């Protein structure tokens, strides 16, 4: 169980998160949604302790995060930033092996158990036979799978992902989110994902946290939380929410004709 209590964060004088309190249920996929600048990514960074101007309490498994050292925290929470940089000439196998750093002794390297874990992480993302390939030669989708393998190889109970499907086409978006959802089912990971696309959030996540201007507007299971009232409040957009193939679908009210009429009037 991961819990944020009264978390406030600011960049200079600009307050981005204002007393946010939210609980993330174990072994579930939670999506953080909201308009640009609402504090989704900042909440993940606050959980990781990356922001100097941040207050409040983060508890993981009932333990105060501020009491955990950097290595101990890495064994509990893994994080995939929005933009990941990989130097040229680094191979996929090397990248995944680096994930075990928090478990390595100062002088030693990975144990046999670690090596099995690295292989299993690569197998899970379907890249076990590509370990010797340079990251720069992988496709966009493969590269994102590689980063997910690294996060998985960290063997932490909680995984935070900041917009993991950005810059990917629809096919890759679906395959990556299917993989991410699978982590909660097969490995009982608690996964928190920042997503821009409400339809993707509704399709793949178990729970959703809706943020606006640094505050939580609504949170809970997808079916009860994503509704027209909340969407209008968070995004200032009236929309139909309906069910198709067991999933919620979000469609803004305005038809193409009315959009064209608005454009002509303008």
């Amino acid at each position: 169980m991961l819990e944020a209590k009264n978390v406030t964060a600011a960049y200079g004088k600009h307050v981005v998160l204002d007393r946010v309190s939210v609980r993330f249920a174990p072994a579930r996929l939670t999506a953080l949604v909201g308009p640009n600048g609402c504090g989704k990514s900042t909440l993940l960074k606050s959980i990781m302790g990356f922001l100097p101007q941040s207050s409040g309490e983060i508890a993981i498994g009932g333990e105060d995060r501020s009491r955990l050292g950097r290595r101990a925290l890495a064994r509990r929470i893994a994080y995939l930033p929005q933009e990941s940089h990989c130097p040229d000439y680094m191979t996929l196998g090397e990248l995944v092996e680096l994930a075990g750093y928090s478990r390595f002794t100062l002088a030693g390297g990975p144990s046999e158990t670690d090596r099995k874990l690295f292989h299993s992480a690569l197998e899970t993302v379907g890249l076990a036979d590509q370990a010797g390939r340079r990251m720069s030669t992988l496709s966009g989708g493969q590269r994102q799978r590689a980063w997910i393998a690294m996060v998985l190889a960290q063997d932490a109970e909680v995984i935070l992902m900041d917009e993991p499907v950005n810059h990917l086409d629809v096919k890759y978006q679906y395959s990556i989110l299917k993989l991410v959802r699978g982590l909660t089912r097969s490995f009982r990971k608690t996964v928190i994902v920042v997503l821009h696309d409400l339809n993707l959030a509704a399709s793949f996540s178990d729970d959703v946290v809706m943020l606006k201007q640094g505050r939580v507007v609504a949170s809970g299971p997808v079916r009860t939380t994503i509704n027209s009232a909340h969407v209008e409040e968070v995004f200032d957009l009236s929309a139909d929410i309906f069910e198709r193939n067991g999933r919620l679908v979000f469609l803004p009210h305005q038809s193409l004709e009315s959009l064209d009429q608005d454009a002509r009037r303008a």
Partner: protein
Amino acid sequence: MTGKALALCVILLGSLGAFIANLSSGATSIPLDAVFAAFFAFDAENYDHYVILYQRLPRALMAIHAGALMACGGVVLQGLTRNPLASPSTLGINSGAAFFVVAGAYVFDLGTEAQGLAAMAGAAFGFICVLSVARLAGGDKDPRGLSLILSGALVSMLLIGLANAFLLSDPARRSDFLGWVTGNINHVYFDRLVFFWPLGVLALAGLFFLARPLTLLTLGEEKAASVGVSVRRVPRLALLCVVIGSGSAVAICGPVGFVGLVVPHVVRPLVGVNMRFALPAAALFGACACLLADILARQAFAPYVLHTGILLDLIGGTVFAVIVKRFYLSPGGQTA
């Protein structure tokens, strides 16, 4: 054996070959059997044995020291700044060390040991100056890091200019430093090697110890921190090691330029970016490059002997242009 281990072995063998060739070549070529005999069956009456042990060996050890430390400094600086042009010579470290040594000797009449401390203080001073100028010039907003390199060029020119001004101020002592200030691998500086080699070894050991977290830092600060790296302590310790290592090399034989810039670009395609391989490979390759440059400096214009630092500057300047073309002027240029 993996490809990387094999590449490391080849570089090691190449370095050993360069070491032996360096001992053998000079104003007079000494046959290999005499080179080995000088080590294993030294004959005090034999002039060749004397030349090998008291002139060429110190010179070769100096080349190894300077080459290994400058190359490792380059690997670490390019990794931390993610800038393909970063190196001790381009980021003011070498020029800062040279300026402090000359200023210390001229103004405070520092002895050889104190000059080593001055070199390290100067290396840190030069590097901090470059970072400060880059920040003033808006370097934080420059993703390709050109402002950092331009600040390095500016600070280096200024500090070397000041060092030269000190040299001109006292013609009687000029000859003591005139060769040194251009980077001169020469057995006359053997006393400096005796004083400062432990600092170089300490710096190398520190960098090898930090290899894993340094590799993680090349993925970005947030990613490294999320995996458990102390993103404040590790870069500071690594930079301290680079400053001590480069400072010790400059204190011995002056600012030997461009090995730190060029070698990382050569070893990366061979052993990759993992510092656990890249640092030993760079140390060996840097040593090998300096040993070979030293041979060339002695032989190319015989009977005249060129300073190794000048030769390395000539080679390095050309490679600098190639790197700028590849990384900055080509569409979709790569990152370090």
